[in-house]
């Protein structure tokens, strides 16, 4: 360590000054897409994104060129964008998650406009609001919907009954019509069973309420509207669950959530149809005691993804034939049987796979709840920057939940942070 400040600074000067290499950006930004080879059709999706039997069947159905399917774990969008930047190994067909589709719309030039390969004939088969999510403002369609995520209320029939609440799905649907009804039930439940908190996590609930509206954080003409009543209403609904002390503060998917579902400390969850799979894998002893009812105050949509064709695809027409086949009503019904991937084509709702009674839900038929919900999802414009702008609201709501800020202080801070982000993204 024979070093002094002087020598160190000298070294820096040498590093900084010694090299006067030009630093041009260096890489092309990929507007001229290199075509992939025709010998193989590569397809990317994330684990559980497509039904296993559907994948196998599709691969068998299209032997030439051979389909090479890869499962990409981790942050899917990050992998996709970095691969686009890297310029090599870009798949012909890729999945796009529902939460990422809005932010990829500005990159429509990277994807094939499905209308140019004959999508017009099939677009009408899918839920209209879902197709809209993948449609750019100038009318290009970059993805065909794989699935949708209509929400429903999952609840523990045994715990409701023990607390004197209605436990039969029809009666629950009747009594828990609005958030206020739901919260009132929560108070009644807690009085009888102090360990059971009806709302698993009030900040998760916030997103549900936002999703029930017809507007989000940014309007279609690119104005920030996150400070308006529709968002404040969702905020207040969430805060109400906290102040009524029926908030379990257990984010879904966390280990504590898994444990709580089975132990009965989390007797309800409101989530998309695909959450059923998470609940089923999390619980051991409470199978058969779960039931389904419509979401209080109306359905929302969570997730639901797309299959898109990149401009690098060797044969876009062929690639489109593949995704059209994969996402036919028959195959969507199969995917539901495989992994609870909820169909985006309403024709699938009448298939036997979806009409089957589910023992986990005490013989209830899930489609009876989710089918009507899927058709009743409110259409809301989602800006590419919606997620970035929404982030401060989630963060600040958590500070209310932990009691470190008052609701009004947190709201003010969330709005100012969101405005700063919106401004950075060029939103007025």
């Amino acid at each position, binding site marked *: 360590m024979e070093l002094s400040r002087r020598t160190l600074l000298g070294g820096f000067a*040498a590093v900084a000054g010694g090299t006067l*290499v030009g630093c041009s950006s260096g890489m092309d930004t990929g507007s001229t897409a290199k075509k992939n080879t025709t010998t193989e059709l590569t397809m990317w999706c994330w684990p559980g994104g497509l039904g296993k039997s559907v994948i196998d069947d599709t691969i068998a159905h299209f032997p030439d060129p051979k389909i090479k399917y890869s499962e990409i774990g981790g942050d899917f969008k990050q992998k996709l964008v970095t691969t686009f930047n890297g310029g090599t190994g870009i798949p012909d067909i890729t999945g796009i998650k529902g939460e990422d589709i809005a932010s990829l719309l500005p990159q429509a030039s990277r994807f094939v406009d499905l209308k140019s390969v004959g999508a017009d004939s099939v677009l009408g088969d899918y839920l209209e609001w879902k197709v809209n999510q993948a449609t750019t403002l100038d009318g290009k369609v970059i993805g065909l919907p794989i699935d949708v995520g209509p929400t429903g209320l999952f609840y523990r029939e045994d715990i409701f009954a023990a607390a004197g609440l209605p436990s039969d799905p029809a009666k629950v649907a009747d009594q828990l019509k609005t958030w206020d009804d739901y919260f009132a039930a929560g108070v009644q439940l807690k009085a009888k069973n102090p360990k059971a908190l009806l709302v698993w996590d009030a900040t998760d609930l916030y997103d549900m309420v936002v999703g029930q509206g017809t507007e989000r954080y940014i309007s279609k003409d690119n104005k920030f509207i996150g400070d308006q009543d529709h968002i404040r209403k969702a905020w207040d609904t969430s805060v109400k669950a906290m102040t009524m002390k029926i908030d379990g503060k257990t984010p879904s998917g966390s280990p504590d959530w898994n444990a709580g579902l089975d132990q009965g400390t989390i007797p309800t969850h409101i989530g998309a149809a695909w959450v059923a799979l998470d609940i089923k894998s999390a619980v051991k002893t409470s199978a058969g005691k779960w039931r389904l009812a419509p979401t209080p105050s109306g359905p929302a949509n969570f997730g639901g993804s797309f299959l898109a064709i990149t401009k690098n695809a060797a044969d876009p027409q062929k690639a489109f034939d593949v995704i059209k086949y994969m996402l036919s009503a028959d195959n969507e019904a199969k995917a539901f049987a495989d992994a609870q991937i909820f169909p985006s084509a309403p024709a699938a709702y009448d298939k036997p796979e979806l009409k089957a009674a589910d023992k986990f839900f005490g013989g209830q038929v899930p489609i009876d709840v989710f089918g009507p919900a899927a058709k009743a999802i409110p259409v809301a414009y989602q800006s590419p920057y919606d997620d970035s702008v929404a982030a401060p609201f989630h*963060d600040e709501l958590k500070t209310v939940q932990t009691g470190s800020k008052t609701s009004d202080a947190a709201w003010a801070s969330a709005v100012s942070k969101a405005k700063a982000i919106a401004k950075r993204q060029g939103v007025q």
Partner: protein
Amino acid sequence: MTGTATVPAATTAPLTGKGQRPGRRIWSYWRFYLALSPFYVLFAVFGLYPMLSTIVLAFQRWDGLSARRFTGLGNFEFLVQDPTFWTALENTIVLFFMSTVPTLVIALLLAVMLQSAVRFTNVYRIAYFIPNVTSLVAMAIFFSSIFSTNFGLVNAALRSLGIPQQDWLGQPWGIKIAISTMIVWQWVGYNTLIYLAGLQAIPKEQYEAAKVDGAGPVRTLFSITLPQLRPVILFTVVISTIGGLQTFTEPQVMVGNSGGTGQSGMTVVLLFYRTAFLDNDYGYAAAIALSIFLLVLLFTAINWRIFRGRSDDR
């Protein structure tokens, strides 16, 4: 440049292969330059060039897919106004102190104790070092499990003592405690070894002289051990600073890309990662990167002042 670097080996005149002639041409040293070249070439390509590009990028707007646009100081203007950046900066510095101070203090105490222990010293050393050679992601998963609310071991211990359980990973301070506990656990052993090496270089006579003077262990620690150990302490502080200000894996695995409740696990490097590779705002990410670099530089300079200042003034 030449002459400012003090090369300690000057005491034993380095060789030059065959005798030294003043007029030797530079190419006759080609073997030496060749031997040194791998590092400098790699550094130029993978260190210096990216660093310079980062500086350029910091003045541009780029989403990774469309063309780059020059924005002047736009990214820095936003940086100064961005509350998330300031939160991340504060978290990083708080986490740095919460983890580095206990790490170094515990390591020093253990090293002093190990120094006076006679038996099993190798067993202790190996065992203490093992936390440093484990999979970081695996350990982050482990620590998030013991701090988990309903089944975590920490809460189980609290409950059996009759203390109400805490929502560790859901509370701003809880997240920081969990993250710094992990860093401390991981780095104490490493620093203990470094200190131990430094302790062994202190001449025994000094201790014996102190003993004759009737100095107790505490006085010996402050009058001999610590002053003698100063350069070694500086080394550990610098290493911890460079590492600590770049904390990423622990919070990323434990509380995710959002930084957890109130973003209290959001560090500047995590913010950099999120901005660049999740939000695809590369220009802004470059501005954040430069600010982290300045931060490391500033902290190193401060360390230097504190630990080196006195001997420099000689």
